[in-house]
């Protein structure tokens, strides 16, 4: 009860919760808000002829206009919220899980295991995420190439342009899955668990020699029970705060990668990439505002929402640490 009171004491926390719930509602109600075409359930729905390049202003068919090649902005916006939410939550939950696992085991067992695991996490910390994306991308490409999958870009190499895969007939189920899977979330998970491990490590190291843990050990409680009942619940608060902020950050990064053509399949990023040449034209931001503004505002609000929610969780969960009130 006290926890939730602390959360609702600042209006910023309310705003964060409101923004995040808004995206959750849109994500759940996506099929109602903008029905899919059954034949092509992707986030980009074409309105009219795809060959027509110039973005069209809002109409009854496309409430927020169309981007280049006549893809509906509104449709991509709605389905993009779903994709962003799924991506952000999936990546943070998995990387936080790995971080908690590594941080807790290393701190609990201490000694050599601790220094080894922390060394490894330090090494991963100096590996930029973009290099991780390149690595995972290349591994997948090599395996597929060896199995005879070929790829060709069509319609130029501008950002957001799609390609065509030539797939051999008897491809195994695993390789088919690999071909459709997106390497970006894998790379993000593999190269963003380290801060969580560090946080968890410091937390557990501080707790493990406290008297009540000592008492539990003397009383003959099993290792696993001490870890899961005492150590993790009592040091997980900063991890949750960080994870909440990361959801927004990860989606911003994903959108950026999609925009510059490094994968990621973010519908919002694709939207802006498709409209790129029209936005960068004389007065483009104002002339083609419907190409630029909706996705930008959605992206900003998504980032701000999760950031504020993270601050709010910090108020609620770590009352003793003074929030850095920026």
């Amino acid at each position, binding site marked *: 009860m006290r926890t939730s009171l602390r959360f609702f004491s600042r209006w910023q926390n309310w705003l964060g919760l409101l923004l995040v719930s808004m995206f959750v509602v849109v994500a759940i109600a996506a099929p109602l808000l903008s029905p899919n075409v059954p034949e092509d359930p992707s986030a980009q729905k074409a309105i009219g002829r795809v060959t027509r390049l110039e973005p069209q202003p809002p109409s009854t068919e496309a409430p927020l206009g169309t981007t280049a090649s006549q893809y509906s902005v509104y449709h991509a916006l709605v389905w993009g919220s779903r994709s962003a939410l799924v991506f952000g939550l999936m990546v943070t939950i998995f990387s936080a899980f790995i971080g908690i696992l590594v941080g807790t085991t290393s701190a609990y067992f201490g000694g050599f295991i601790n220094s080894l695991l922390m060394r490894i996490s330090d090494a991963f910390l*100096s590996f930029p995420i973009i290099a991780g994306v390149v690595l995972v991308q290349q591994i997948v490409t090599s395996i597929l190439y060896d199995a005879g999958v070929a790829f060709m870009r069509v319609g130029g190499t501008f950002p957001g342009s799609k390609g065509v895969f030539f797939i051999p007939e008897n491809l195994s189920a695993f390789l088919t899955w690999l071909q459709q899977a997106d390497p970006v979330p894998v790379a993000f998970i593999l190269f963003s668990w380290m801060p969580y491990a560090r946080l968890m490590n410091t937390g557990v190291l501080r707790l493990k020699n406290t008297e009540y843990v000592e008492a539990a050990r003397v009383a003959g409680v099993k290792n696993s029970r001490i870890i899961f009942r005492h150590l993790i619940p009592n040091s997980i608060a900063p991890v949750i705060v960080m994870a909440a902020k990361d959801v927004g950050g990860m989606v911003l990064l994903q959108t950026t990668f999609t925009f510059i053509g490094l994968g990621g399949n973010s519908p919002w990023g694709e939207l802006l990439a498709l409209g790129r040449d029209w936005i960068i034209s004389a007065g483009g931001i104002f002339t083609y505002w419907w190409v630029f503004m909706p996705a930008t505002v959605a992206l900003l609000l998504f980032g701000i929402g999760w950031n504020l929610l993270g601050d709010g969780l910090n108020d609620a969960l770590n009352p003793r640490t003074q929030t850095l009130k920026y």
Partner: protein
Amino acid sequence: MRNLLQHLMKRIISLLITLFIITAVLYATVMFTPAETRATLFMPKNTSPRMTEQQYQAMLNRMIEKYHLNDPYPVQYYYWVSSLLQGNWGYSPVLQENILSAIIARTPATAELALFSILLFIPLGIISGVIAGSRQHKASDHGFRITAFIATSLPSFILALILLSFFYVDLHWFAPGRATSSISNVINSQDFRLYTGMYTIDGLLNGRPDVTLDALRHLAMPVFTLAIAHWATLGRITRATMVEEMQQDYVTAARARGLSDNRIVWGHTLRNAASPALTSSILSATSLLTGVYVVEILFNINGISSVAVSSMAFIPDASAALGFGIYNVILVWFLMLILDVAQSLIDPRIREAV
């Protein structure tokens, strides 16, 4: 001086350990790929891009034979690391050249962008953070907080779109790329010597200020885009520590002695507040580097990022993947070192303790 050397030694050792772990992990991941992919890692430096399909295949087979690429992981790892140490980082089928020389040739463009941004955002971030923090709840503080909040929430590519639309298309002030075509003709000509590969510095060294000006005109937008997000983060942390610092007893004591506010802020609290903020910058050196690459791609600068872009060509290129990774680990180390030096310039405690 001796402390400094010791500190440097410590950093070098930690780099070696990091490199060992990273190379071991990297090679373990390429073990999932077929031997032909790994064979490109061992191709000699002077591999010609003009080989027929058969010649290329024969070469791959020879590499597999010679470097035991069907043997267990430790054997292969040993061969790979020894060839890395000999300076052979492998042949990139996409870039059609040796990956190490390809990356080194592209480094000056990246370094120029990163250095200018660091030189811009560190002083500005600290100064604005200190000003805002020492005038808590005043107009300048609110102004800073709002600007910084927007700057941290705004993805760099959105900012790039806005900048390109206004300053490139509408006003013609700045341009993407590295140089105007007439200037790149000058740069590529015989009597223009490339000392550093950074056009701004080389222009001055060659006595051609027009080259420097043109390079700066092309650097303005990317440097601004890159600096703004890091300026905001650094400024916000400096502000937060500054607010705490202003409530310390020594500040009250200095006030009681009648020191002016300016003297207290710039003479006393600045160093205490800026140092922890810079530590956070050092810790985010990897994200700074990712940011550099993103900005390079956004503004069409042919830097190291082009290796990342070419990896999307769906042609197996293990050399590019591993070379890019290892090179980045070294670059991150360098960035941390630079920020380290900046921190020790500001904070005498660190200068003495290192």
